[in-house]
């Protein structure tokens, strides 16, 4: 027993190391459970949402009723996404997962475009730029992370592999991106904030659907 202890301790330390070192999607992080991965991506999405909210509130001080501005059309509006809890709970897991990935994918290109754009046009405060860049990176990371979770779930048989076909249908994404590039800055921020919240909510729902016992 005495020998076993250092071993377990070492392995615990190793796991901690993995937790700290492994970025989502890192191939070396095999020890992470699906729940761990979910917690990570949820936290990650939460951070993205916080950043986007900060960006949003900088751009739109609370006193302006910015919501009232008409003709705001997000490029992702065309996507059919669950707009309530019950819907999000009913939709098949695979589809929900696919939706999340689709949303993230839809923002990948517009975000980098947006970054280039605000770099040239100094309309936004300085730290907004850094925030936007950060967001861009994080969205990329998040997408990788969600893909990782998806892989894992698929490998464990939690969700079916039918997702593969859906994920590859990126053709629609291109047109969406073009649409996004036409958006004004404020619309862009507004829309991204909304979608980041969507992603977070879907991830949470997905997690609790898959692992209801896990702090849900």
């Amino acid at each position, binding site marked *: 027993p005495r020998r076993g202890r250092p071993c377990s301790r070492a392995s615990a330390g190793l796991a901690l190391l993995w937790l700290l070192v492994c970025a989502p999607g890192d191939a070396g992080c095999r020890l992470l459970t699906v729940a761990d991965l979910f917690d990570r991506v949820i936290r990650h999405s*939460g951070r993205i949402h916080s950043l986007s909210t900060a960006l949003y509130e900088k751009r739109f001080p609370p006193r302006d009723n910015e919501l009232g501005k008409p003709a705001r059309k997000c490029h992702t509006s065309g996507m059919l996404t669950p707009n309530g809890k019950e819907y999000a709970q009913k939709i098949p897991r695979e589809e929900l997962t696919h939706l999340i990935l689709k949303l993230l994918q839809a923002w990948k290109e517009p975000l980098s475009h947006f970054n280039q754009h605000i770099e040239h046009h100094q309309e936004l405060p300085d730290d907004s730029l850094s925030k936007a860049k950060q967001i861009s990176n994080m969205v990329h990371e998040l997408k990788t992370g969600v893909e990782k979770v998806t892989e894992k779930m698929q490998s464990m048989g939690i969700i079916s592999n039918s997702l593969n076909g859906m994920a590859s249908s990126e053709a629609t994404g291109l047109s969406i991106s073009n649409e996004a590039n036409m958006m004004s800055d404020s619309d862009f921020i507004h829309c991204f904030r909304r979608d980041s*919240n969507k992603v977070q*909510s879907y991830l949470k729902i997905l997690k609790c659907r898959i692992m209801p016992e896990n702090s*849900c």
Partner: protein
Amino acid sequence: LFLYFCTSLGQSYPGRPKIIRCRSLEKETFSCWWKPGSDGGLPTNYTLLYSKDSEEKIYECPDYRTSGPNSCYFDKNHTNPWTTYNITVMARNEIGCNSSDPQYVDVTSIVQPDAPMNLSLETKTSASIMHLWAKWSPPPLADVSSNSHVYHYELRLKPEEKEEWETIPVGVQTRYKVNRLQAGVKYVVQVRCMLDLGEWSEWSSKRRIQIPDGKSPPEKPTIIKCRSPEKETFTCWWKPGSDGGLSTNYTLLYSKEGEEQVYECPDYRNAGPNSCYFDKKHTSFWTIYNITVRATNEMGSNISDPHYVDVTYIVQPDPPVNVTLELKKSINRKPYLVLTWFPPPLADVRSGWLTLEYELRLKPEEGEEWETIFVGQQTQYKMFSLNPGKKYIVQIHCKPDHHGSWSEWSSEEYIQIPTDFRVKDMVVWIVVGVLSSLICLIMSWTMVLKGYRMIAFILPPVPGPKIKGIDTHLLETGKSEELLSALGCHGFPPTSDCEELLIEYLEVEDSEDQQLMPSHDNGHPSKNAKIIPKETDSDSGRGSCDSPSLLSEKCRESRALPSTLQTQNVRDVQEDKGGKRSWETQCIASEQKIVLFNDESTKLSTWPTAQLPDNQPPMFAYHNPVDAHKITLSTTNVHVARVLVGNEEKHQSQYPIIETCHDDMEKQRGMENLYSKTDQTTVQVKQNRPNDKPPFLNPKLMDYVEVHKVRQDAEPAVLLKHKENSRKTEKYTVPGTSKEYTKVSTVVDHNILVLMPDSRIQHTSVSQEPAMETSQNLQQSQAEKNMSYCLTLPSKCKRENNGSEYMDPSSFMPSFK
């Protein structure tokens, strides 16, 4: 009456004036107005004269101006409500004069206030019924300070085109709500007032108001807020504007972002009046709702400003429920508070759809500032470091993560942090304290009862200074003696102590002689020390004085005494023996001293009584040398006297020592010398002290050793001393200088100890052989207790010689008691 003042001289005298009215506004002042008659074509003066019913005197009007022309104003000073005034106005011109009819005025009955002021009218609509509100203010007064009057009001109104007034008694209020008005009619309103029993004032000026006919369109309603309590449904509330006097319908309309279609509120009832409830079906997230409220009545409608809502961001949960506070003890018995709570029942946190974060705040009940703690997503929290004995108020609220707003605070929960944890410790300490004090008490009590033994155990008796002159150290060591006395020797009869000590001494002497001899040779007197206490204990049976501990204690005390007497010999001995042994030897020595002392006392039948005075002097002596001297002097006198008597009776031969004693005594009686002597002695002490660094141990040892030495080496020593003695006698003639007789040279005639100054020269007035005899005799007499006279005598002589030295024995004894 007033006619006498007028003389009618012709036809052109003025016409009769007429008093029109007299009036008081507020019972405190009043005015009278008159109407002049014809002036007869000449300028005419008017004079108002009045008299009071209580007196004959006639006064003229005090003030013609205040109330305007042809008037008289009676101010407060001229107004008495209990008086009837008889007032006449007189008109006078060059030709003659004319007077009015007299007017009798009772102030109380002529009170009539001015009309109320500032009447204003307003229509209001409540519950679709129109009211008219009339407001006014009380009449103004000339004297603003007396504004405390209570007026009663009356209001009258009528439609403008009608003749008949409708009069309404109002009471003391200055406003009135008129119901049952005809819509669309213009009304005229007036008010008047009355003060107590006086007359009604004039009606105020007219006010007109158009009552609206109630057919206007409603005002714009306002949407107050929208809120989703659980991120699944939401509700919006609005505030209606005025309804225009008609029943008004409210319609909530909304459209969603990106949709043209306008919907009406699905549920007006669920959330109460003026609200709209959107159930799950009608609630979508990540969509902006454009919400308006339309108020409609017969006359038209009005639409509120649009309200835009994204339900995701209007989530405000209900406060957490089932907040429980529980006190627990940690391992180290410190209490800590465990707070647990549950999310609001509406919130479905298990689905992951809504994640709540919590924040709690707490403060002591009487505190003012809340301490706020962000807890995160967990539903329990442990609080340490709460102040015991305080009552805390705790509240918790929650909010969805990343968006939405905080809920209301949960209801206040109270928790009393108990003090008993600390109290337990306190109790323990108190118990410990009580027990220890009890033990102390018992110990001190037993000390008091059996105290002397104990003290003797702790503080060994100190040998008397008979053999070696005891110096002023006693004075300086006074504190230690006080200590001893404080330790509880008080209650003991001094006699017994002394007797015992005497007995000890006698035996000790014997044993010492035998045992000390070898011990001295070996340089190890420690054996003696052991033996002596045993003997004393067994023999005397009075442990208080005898017990070894007491002896040792006494030794400490006695250290001080002979310090001045120290000699080189003693030091040598001490060095040889080493510290530990020296201590024991000291004890022995001190014991011996005391024994010697006791001998004295036992011999004297009057000792007990005499000792009482003795006891006290030393006590004082250390505080106040002069007093001490006096007291000791008196005591010494007594002793000396007795001793002398004894001596004279038993021994015809008087030695020069004794004589010197006498001399000294008398000198001491002479008194003033004492002071100087004490000074000298103190000086000695100071000089001596640096010499003996282990100050107190040595001297005692010395004493002891010296005595035995003398005895041991009796023959050779005596011879030497003999020669010296002659010098000493010479010295005695100068009493002040010769003070140190620390060694016993011989004992003469059983009774007399011959002392010699140890420091430089030792004198004995007795030859060698007698000394030997006396020493033998001494031993015998010790057994018999007869010899004490001898011992006491020299010791007293010493005292007398030295003054302060004398004190030592006597003062010492009492101190032990």
